[in-house]
């Protein structure tokens, strides 16, 4: 099977009338990578994918697949295959006819098509079901048929538009692993769209986080989680506690922030923003719930937060403790379940400690709305 082919988006703008759906997107995807676009609903993910597959021409900029400019090349001539948000299986065709549709339009004989379809049915663990119709399959099975149909076209790049969004949680988790395995086996470039961050982080080599048509950060899943470059990424990916304030002092890669509510707190500056933050700037500091620990009160420590408990929730593997935080936002701390009955009681004042390397500071900006 063809090995991966690189995809480059260079300064892509996509407009619908006056509305800008995608703004200045610059992405380079390595051949054979599993690349994800992650962002809230309506941020322009599908629009980007349609520009790559050829269903719409960008208003400005260049799409290159394998180094070749795709301007003016229609979707049926591009080496891409798209798995649609709603799968779009052909309801009047049998499963094997669906899978081998790309061969049918290329003029392959029935015997050839049947043979290839049976091979692919084996691969997606649906052997012997080729004569059914799509309406006779379960959601997960349809999903796999859609993947097989796209792979049958031998694309260099497989584009997947939230293919798992219609599935229930269990199946979704199962399909994630399966997709990743298929990708490793066929070795082609996958471009995957999702608004589920768990999906993006577990499967991808690289993730692009989008906000209202703008790509905020492109990085590995690990870096997106640990080193977010904007307040939007920090608050959209995973859970995060935000502390607003002004920069009081900068020492190398660390900043001392005078927060509105919790006094002076020490934090490292997120790598991409080092040098862009100066004393007196409005800043935001993020600390993840799982990096907060209970400790003794220590007024002189710059990594201790004192707050009153609002309530506590039991979540099975952990307890979530919510404390009065900055403005209307509460501070969340998660404590692993080690057999305790409870962690705190309502109204109790707690001292929370953290490690300065687990906190990230960056210039203030827009947060992801919940």
């Amino acid at each position, binding site marked *: 099977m063809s090995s991966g082919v690189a995809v480059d988006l260079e300064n892509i703008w996509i407009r619908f009338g006056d509305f800008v759906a995608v703004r200045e997107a610059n992405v380079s995807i390595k051949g054979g990578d599993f690349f994800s676009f992650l962002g809230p609903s309506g941020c322009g993910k599908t629009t980007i994918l349609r520009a790559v597959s050829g*269903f719409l021409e960008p208003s400005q900029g260049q799409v290159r697949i394998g180094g070749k400019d795709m301007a003016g090349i229609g*979707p*049926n001539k591009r080496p*891409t*295959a798209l798995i*649609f948000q709603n799968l*779009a299986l052909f309801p009047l065709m049998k499963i094997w006819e669906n899978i081998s549709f790309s061969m049918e*339009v290329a003029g392959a004989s029935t015997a050839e098509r049947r043979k290839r379809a049976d091979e692919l049915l084996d691969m997606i663990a649906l052997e012997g079901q080729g004569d059914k119709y799509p309406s*006779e399959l379960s959601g997960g099975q349809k999903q796999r048929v859609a993947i097989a149909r796209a792979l049958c076209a031998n694309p260099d790049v497989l584009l997947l538009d939230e293919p798992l969004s219609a599935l229930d949680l269990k199946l979704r988790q199962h399909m994630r692993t399966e997709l990743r395995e298929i990708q490793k086996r066929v070795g082609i470039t996958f471009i995957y769209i999702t608004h589920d961050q768990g999906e993006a982080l577990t499967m991808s080599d690289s993730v692009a986080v989008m906000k209202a048509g703008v790509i905020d950060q492109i990085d590995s899943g690990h870096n997106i989680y640990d080193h977010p470059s904007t307040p939007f990424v920090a608050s959209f990916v995973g859970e995060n506690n935000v502390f607003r304030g002004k920069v009081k002092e900068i020492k190398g890669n660390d900043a001392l922030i005078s927060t509105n509510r919790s006094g002076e707190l020490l934090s490292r500056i997120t790598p991409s923003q080092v040098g862009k933050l100066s004393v007196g700037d409005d800043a935001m500091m993020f600390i993840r719930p799982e990096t907060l620990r209970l400790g003794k009160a220590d007024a002189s420590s710059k990594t201790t937060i004192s707050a009153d408990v609002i309530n506590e929730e039991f979540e099975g593997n952990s307890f979530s403790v919510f404390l009065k935080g900055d403005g209307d936002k509460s501070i969340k701390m998660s404590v692993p379940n080690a057999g305790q009955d409870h962690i705190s009681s309502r109204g109790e004042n707690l001292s929370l400690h953290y490690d300065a390397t687990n906190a990230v500071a960056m210039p203030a900006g827009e947060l992801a709305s919940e």
Partner: protein
Amino acid sequence: MSSSTVIRFALGAYLLVFFSYLLGPLVVMSMTAFNSSAFPSVSPWACFTYEWFDVLLNDKHIRDGIYYSFIIGVGTVILSVSMGLAASIVLTQVWPRIRSTYYTMIIAPILIPGVVLGISTLVFWDRVGQFLGAPDGSFLHGLFHNGIFLTILGQSTFIASYAMLVFVARLQRFDPGLTEAALDLGATHTQAFRKILLPFMRPAIASASVLAFLASFENYNTTTFTIIDYKTLTTVLAQKVRLGINPSISSLAFIIIVLTIFAALAFEAVQRNGRRREAVAQGKANPPSKGIIPPFFHGNFAAFALVALAFVVIMMVSTAQSHSPEVCKQQVRDARQIEIQQRIDALKKSRALKEQQSNSEAAEPDAEPAPASSGAFGGVFAPSNLSADEEEPEASEPKEGSGAFGNVFAPTNLDSGD
């Protein structure tokens, strides 16, 4: 009596009245096809006969009419189904802001009277011919004055709109993502149309074709202007009504009714069979047990009714070969003869009586009462006024002084056929 019983009774009565209103005329008409009386009637019942079917099959005008109606129907189906399909697809692609205007424009021919469409078709193509400068006798001139060509075009102007309505309803349920998926998998636009959209539209194409054919077959308003020197079934029938009809028309109606019931039952039987097979495939029903009855008939009442109807028709056709109403007709003739004789005798008697009473009075001219000298419309609809250019044999002896319906209802007609 509880109120629900009252309601149910009222509903039953209503349905009875409704269906007799709907189907009564058809039943009566079908019966008249088997009465030997020369004018379509049920009472007095003369003799059971198949002879009107014979008359029908030997009537060249009706045969020609059916033939041309059929040709025009097929032409109209082809033209209006393709135009309707194209129009409906354009409707889904066109710029949303002009969509409703476009829709109104496309639907307008349905609202325009058929007469107007007929006349404008005639005039328009005549002008087109003149504009192109097609001389008399040239192919184009012939085409633009050809009744079949013009009728197909004239009927398609509004039948295409009907077809489009059928297609639009189906297209609304089409997922355009399917076409995109096909394109994405390497299909050309033509392949995507042929392999994805067309199969999806197939049921709608079938029903639009049936609709278009029936609409064409029964059309009169437009056809009567565009048909020129040809004839269709409707124009032949219209002429016959003017010139006097006999029960062969009823026998044609009977044949059409039987064919319709046949088609409806066949459709229903196939549908039921499909539903049953689907239910079996989904495990919601048991597969039919192997027995003497073929699986097609399993729980399929329509299929049984279909077979029963076919059986009745075959029986009728075979008895028609041997059934001879001659004896009965002879009896009716004899009875009539005797009756007439008695009436003549009675008349003679009364005349003799009158002569005796006053010798100066003139004798009555006729035994039978003569029809009034003119009907409500005078001689306007008398066949002689309309059939000047038609070589209708029936038109050769128009009776003078006939009423609005020609001599159709003249009582003398009732006897002449026996």
